[in-house]
């Protein structure tokens, strides 16, 4: 038994639902008790789908357990195939039905339906949502291909036609899948590559049967499509892509990878102006992003891609990196090691929270869970991965993949931080008597009680000098609060260490250091003092440490 407050992934049958809900012409009969229908609302509410997921639940009750739950399943399967007339039927059990061992596969087989019946075995007490999705896609692909009797020695004559690929992985309730497919399709078309089938997203069982006809497979979401793509590669000699095109560098690598598989020239999709991210990152306003400390957590593909973007394309320091996808623990660990940190592989929300609190990063890039953690800790955050919430399905076009995805990522990562010029100006004038952080906005008239409450701050300003000032004071006040929180946290941390403390004048001097490097300065100085056995940090120690570390 494991004590769990929040979970990153649902059970494996929810993964199966994500695959079938993404498709057309498939119906899923799930042997499950009343209550498991909650999963429908993930699709109708979070993703705002206008149709119910194509799932029939048997809704067995306690009084059925002594009787014939198998008969209940058969009735549900028969009625669902009559009512929905699917081209393929998927059958399986949720966690409770797994325990009563009714064998949905065998029962559905016994109905003698004319359509392919795909039986899923999803061990709910071992596996989770992504595994369930991957297994379901694999079983569906295999079932449909075998039902259509596609020969293993299928000839793919490449003469006189454009190269052809499938896109695998996008499904229901996927983080930005809808827009990623659009963006990557455009990219492939620019290279002159035809897209044969996109699956599961929008595919029918007949489309799945056509998968072997393509020359290669583009795996957009390895968590979902890797198993199916590996089987297709083994059975039909279809190579599969390994690079997930999130970020400018990864997109370029991806372009080269698919161009090589397709035998085409990659140049049309490598134009330097394809994304605005590189120039935005080089422009002077972004200087302040340098060395921002980021904590990254999510599914493995998105988190690993984010780490590369953070380091190479934003100039951040990746101070924490991890995933809840244990299936991808190995590559994640390797990447973390190459960044000089240790990967956090866990599905325990409390452990992640603890790590974030311990690292106090400048920015958290995570899932909806980390958004809540960051909110509680007062750290800016941007969502990069599932689990998702309704706001992760924006009305506008907002891919994560490809060049447009890189633009979206730049904006959404920078947005929770402050713009560089703004930060710089606020800092430059922060000791100006009319421009201190607690000055209320002049257009609001007399000082507000909130501003008065804040003006007790001793580090930076003199409350006597408080005077109304320009319009920027609002944003200054906001800045002030986060600053106070940061400093309070830091003081607590050093007090707990109990080894070094700060003299008043040194503390005051520290307050003069721009806040975005202040945390770093504090830690560096404390480490310096600790190494030298200095118990009380003076102004002298502060500058000694600065000189020492800037060598």
């Amino acid at each position: 038994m494991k004590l769990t407050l929040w979970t990153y992934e649902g059970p494996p049958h929810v993964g199966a639902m994500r695959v079938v809900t993404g498709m057309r012409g498939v119906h899923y009969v799930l042997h499950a008790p009343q209550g498991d229908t909650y999963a429908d609302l993930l699709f109708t509410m979070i993703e705002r789908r206008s149709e119910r997921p194509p799932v029939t639940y048997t809704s067995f009750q306690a009084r059925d357990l002594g009787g014939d739950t198998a008969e209940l399943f058969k009735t549900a399967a028969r009625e669902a195939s009559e009512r929905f007339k699917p081209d393929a039927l998927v059958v399986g059990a949720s966690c409770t039905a797994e325990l009563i061992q009714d064998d949905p596969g065998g029962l559905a087989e016994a109905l003698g339906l004319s359509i392919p019946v795909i039986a899923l075995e999803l061990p709910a007490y071992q596996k989770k949502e992504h595994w369930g999705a991957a297994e379901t896609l694999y079983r569906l692909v295999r079932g449909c291909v075998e039902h259509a009797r596609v020969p293993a020695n299928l000839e793919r004559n490449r003469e006189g036609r454009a190269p052809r690929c499938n896109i695998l992985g996008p499904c229901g309730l996927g983080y930005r899948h809808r827009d990623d497919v659009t963006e990557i399709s455009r990219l492939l078309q620019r290279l002159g590559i035809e897209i044969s089938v996109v699956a599961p997203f929008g595919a029918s069982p007949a489309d799945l049967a056509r998968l072997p006809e393509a020359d290669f497979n583009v795996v957009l979401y390895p968590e979902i499509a890797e198993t199916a793509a590996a089987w297709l590669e083994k059975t039909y000699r279809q190579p599969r892509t390994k690079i997930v095109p999130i970020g400018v560098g990864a997109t370029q690598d991806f372009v080269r990878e698919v161009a090589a598989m397709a035998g085409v020239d990659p140049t049309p999709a490598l134009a330097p102006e394809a994304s605005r991210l590189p120039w935005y990152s080089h422009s002077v306003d972004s200087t302040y992003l340098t060395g921002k400390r980021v904590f990254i957590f999510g599914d493995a593909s998105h988190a690993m891609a984010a780490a590369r973007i953070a380091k190479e394309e934003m100039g951040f320091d990746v101070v924490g990196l991890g995933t809840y996808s244990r299936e991808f623990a190995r590559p994640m660990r390797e990447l973390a090691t190459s960044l000089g940190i240790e990967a956090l592989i866990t599905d325990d929300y409390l452990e992640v929270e603890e790590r974030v609190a311990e690292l106090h990063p400048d920015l958290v890039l995570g899932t909806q869970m980390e958004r809540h953690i960051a909110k509680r800790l007062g750290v800016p955050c941007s969502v990069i991965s599932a689990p998702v919430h309704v706001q992760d399905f924006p009305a506008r076009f907002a891919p994560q993949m490809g060049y447009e995805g890189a633009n979206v990522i730049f904006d959404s990562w920078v947005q929770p931080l402050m713009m560089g010029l703004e930060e710089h100006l606020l800092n430059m004038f922060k000791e100006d008597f009319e421009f201190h952080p607690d000055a209320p906005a002049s257009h609001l008239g007399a000082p507000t009680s909130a501003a008065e409450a804040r003006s007790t701050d001793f580090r930076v300003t003199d409350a006597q000098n408080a005077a109304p000032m320009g319009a920027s004071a609002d944003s200054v006040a906001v800045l002030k609060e986060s600053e106070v929180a940061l400093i309070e946290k830091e003081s607590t941390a050093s007090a707990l260490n109990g080894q070094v403390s700060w003299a008043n004048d040194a503390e005051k001097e520290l307050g003069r250091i721009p806040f975005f490097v202040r945390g770093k300065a504090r830690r560096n100085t404390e480490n310096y003092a600790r190494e030298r056995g200095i118990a009380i940090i003076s102004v002298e120690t502060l500058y000694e440490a600065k000189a020492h570390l800037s060598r």
Partner: protein
Amino acid sequence: MNAPLSHIPVLRERGQREVFCGLTGIVWLHRKVQDAFFLVVGSRTCAHLIQSAAGVMIFAEPRFATAIIDERDLAGLADANDELDRVVTQLLARRPDIRLLFLVGSCPSEVIKLDLSRAAERLNTQMWPQTRVLNYSGSGIETTFTQGEDACLASWVPVLPDAPSNTAAELMVVGSLPDIVEDQLRRQFAAMGIPKVVFFPPRRSTETVHVGSNTRFLLAQPFLSETARLLEARGAQRIPALFPFGAEGTAAWLAAAGKSFGIAESVCIEASAAAMRRAQRALAPFKEELQGKKVFFFPDSQLEIPLARFLSRELGMVLTEVGTPYLHKTHLAEELAALPSEVQLSEGQDVERQIDRCRASQPDLVVCGLGLANPFESEGMATKWSIELVFSPVHGFEQAADLAELFARPLRRRQRLKI
């Protein structure tokens, strides 16, 4: 109001049920009882369900969690009881402020016959008096949505202390209500001359709630059949009444208490006259909007019948089908008698057939769960999410118009949108 109970035929169905299980009640129960913790012993599905139902409540440090059963527990490699003890110890070490711990059974724990009542007893002997440990089942194979609250309160009734037998009659209001509503009702009762009212569940588990033969209780919610049965078994007497939805329902509910305590009818009427007038005034514009509009209820919380009565009698809405997961004919006797005879009642569910009937009856408003709402909206039907009726303050005079507004808003929105 004295028509025979069975004047309305009830359609009983079996099939797919598009409803939550009883675990969902944890979402509001843990907010109500502020020193209680709910530990579900179940699967990842259970954890995922509560998390999905709780939505934004993730912002709060939750007082609920799931002990997820894994294959080691199932294979017998780990003694489930030892595992449970370990998890509970870990939990209470983290949250020493917890005074009442519910072990909540789920579908998997019921199917593998994990005896949580014995586990609760064992843990209670270790943890008491710092923490009391109780257990109930919120499993989907036994409970539908609000029945989870019934099961929770029912597990609590046997440990309520005995009321001293020689005291005067006391009033107990049963069913969790928002604090603000409790306070309003408390003032109403005081004005009527019933000064001592206890609410069950209490806001803190350490508050004393006595029960005995001098206890008279009013149900605030229509889904508390087992809780009521156990209270009656301890000598308490249920005061039959309409449920306190709408001005009429609230007045009747208060009057029933007054009558039971021997308070003159004129005193009761006088005591609630101002609030009653206020409620009626606030309801009037909604009646203009909703009069003659057809409403269809999918089964969800067991609030359907009292709400249908309110919509029909106080707002003039036309009832098509009113579905309920479970129909308690005794507790709902007054409600059923107040329904128009042409209504179609249904109990249980076969969701596909019910959707067919709903489309055929072309209602102006469909009251349904979150899994059905957007699909109906996309077909052009206005919907009201039923879960909001459980989470929002809707009882009593002061909330009568808020309750009406919940039904009017989807229609108003449709009128506004010109796209």
